[in-house]
């Protein structure tokens, strides 16, 4: 009677023993190709750090030499680099701050489901799917001094000769506006998902007790939404401080050096001045900043992920 079962047991036992060794190497085997691809990408990363410690200009190959931290010292002694740091941080603060506010407002408006809000939440996806660089070109067409529709609109309301991205006074405003067009939907979609995932009970209880709306908003909803806002905000911060596409397409860092953010400055150093050493040094500084930010981000994101799994 127990024979067939025992036989199966024996077979599966033998299989499991030979499978045990397999099981130990299997994960490595499966992830090896992805790992190798990673290594292929890690190598240039270390090369960049290595270049940053050298005097390395493609125009003077003979002068290539190891100079330790000289590139960094020179960077931090130049006013130009401080301008780069200031404008990058300003750009980041403005885009993330404004997108956060507008994104939250939109998410709140779309919270209640109706035909219009459903339609609008689908429409919001569209700008998000446009390449940031293509979006910039669209805005460039719309802000053209000769035929741009937006130039026409501002002239109608009495602001003549508003030169958008080509005037130093309004260049930052213009690229921030484009950035907001491209990325605000990202924040609102994320926050909307967060809002719709919130438990109902606290809100129902608050309503029953006649708690004022402002109290519900600041003391119940915002704290519950905070992890989502942190995730979205940090994501955007990491993107914003590295912004290249939008600014490159709109002004290439100009007019003058108005919008010389980190990556544009590095691009200029590398491709216009062929100064690989200095370009790498700029990028290493940027990397250090993003690395610190991403550490904070990962911690938050993991907590959110765990929580989502716990609820599911």
């Amino acid at each position, binding site marked *: 009677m127990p024979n067939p079962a025992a036989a199966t047991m024996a077979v*599966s036992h033998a299989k499991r023993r030979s499978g045990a060794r397999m099981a130990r190497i299997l*994960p*490595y085997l*499966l*992830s090896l*190709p*992805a*790992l190798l*691809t*990673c290594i292929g*990408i890690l190598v*240039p*990363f270390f090369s960049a750090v290595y*270049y940053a410690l050298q005097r390395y200009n493609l125009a003077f190959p003979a002068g290539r030499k190891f100079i330790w931290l000289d590139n960094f010292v020179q960077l931090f002694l130049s006013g130009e680099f401080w301008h780069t740091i200031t404008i990058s941080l300003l750009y980041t603060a403005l885009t993330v701050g404004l997108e956060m506010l507008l994104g939250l*407002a*939109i998410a709140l*408006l779309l919270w209640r489901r109706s035909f*219009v809000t459903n339609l609008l939440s689908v*429409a919001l*996806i*569209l*700008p*998000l*799917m*446009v*390449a*940031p*660089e*293509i979006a910039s*070109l*669209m805005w*460039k*067409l*719309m802000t053209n001094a*000769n*035929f741009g*529709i937006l130039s*026409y609109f501002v002239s109608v309301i009495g602001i003549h000769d508003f030169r958008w991205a080509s005037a130093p006074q309004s260049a930052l405003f213009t690229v921030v506006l484009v950035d907001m*067009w491209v*990325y605000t*939907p990202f924040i609102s979609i*994320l926050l909307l998902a967060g809002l719709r995932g919130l438990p109902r009970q606290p809100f129902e209880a608050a309503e029953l007790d006649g708690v004022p709306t402002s109290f519900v908003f600041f003391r119940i909803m915002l704290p519950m939404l905070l992890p989502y806002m942190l995730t*979205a905000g940090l*994501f955007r911060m990491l*993107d914003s401080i590295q912004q*290249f*596409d939008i600014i490159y*397409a709109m002004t290439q860092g100009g007019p003058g050096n108005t919008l010389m953010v*980190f*990556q544009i400055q*590095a691009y200029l150093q590398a491709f216009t001045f062929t100064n*690989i050493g200095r*370009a*790498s040094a700029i*990028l290493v500084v*940027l990397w250090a900043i*993003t690395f610190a*930010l991403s550490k904070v981000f*990962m911690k938050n*994101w993991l907590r959110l992920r765990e929580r989502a799994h716990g609820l599911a």
Partner: protein
Amino acid sequence: MQGKSVLRAVSLVLIGLFFLFPLFWVFLMSFMTNADILRNPPSVIFSPTLHNYGALISGNLGTVVGTQKIDYMLNLFNSFVLSSGSVILSLILGVPAAYAFARFKFRLGEDMAFTLLSFRFAPPLLVLLPLLIYFQQMGLYDTYFGLIWVYQLITLPLVLWIVRGYFEDVSEDIELAYRLDGHSWLQTFLRISIPLARPGIAAAALLSFIFAWNNFIFALILGSSSVQPVTVGALAFITASGIEYGQIAAALVLSIVPTLILALFTQRYLVEGLSLGAIKG
């Protein structure tokens, strides 16, 4: 109460206008002649022409000084090759790795998953500058293969993290039952695990296609016009002097339409995809 709902309606309209008007206007422009575009005041009433698209397809573009040859269709083709190539490679590399991360708790796995994710956060130029130097030495500069390899920076983390989540949801009991029936590990993986995670794999594939399509800086630096995608091609377009504005608008529309269509299919997955690896740019 009345005032509040009016305010709400007005805000909804303004939001709709801000996010949709640019797309709408550029779309209209792509059917206008230069004279229509330059008309002051601008008007939405004009007789639409397909001339701009025709010029793009034929490659003979109208400028103020006559025609100029720009092969924008090649850029469009390059975009398709680069994006689909990257997605296919990412699936081949990423799906088995995602399974390993989901099923087996191994230390290297966690470390690797995070290393991959943190690539997402490194400044692209930091990797691209040395790569440019290596690619020129290795003969990978200006090749599809070289670019597709670098595009893994965008697509691989996306595939890995999305698909991993789906594998985690596949019940181990089902896999075990199939294996006890005498099937090998590989058969189980191919016949049970992958089909069950298919929605996740599809979502990851569509999203990474979109993100690869929208990338700009990689091909700007690692390729010349023969392999460059629409994002880079369109910029050359706008800086080339004197090209008719309607043709620029038509070029932009052509570069957007494929991803917009895909987006309508990916809606459902967008939230998790974006929050896992929002790799725009």
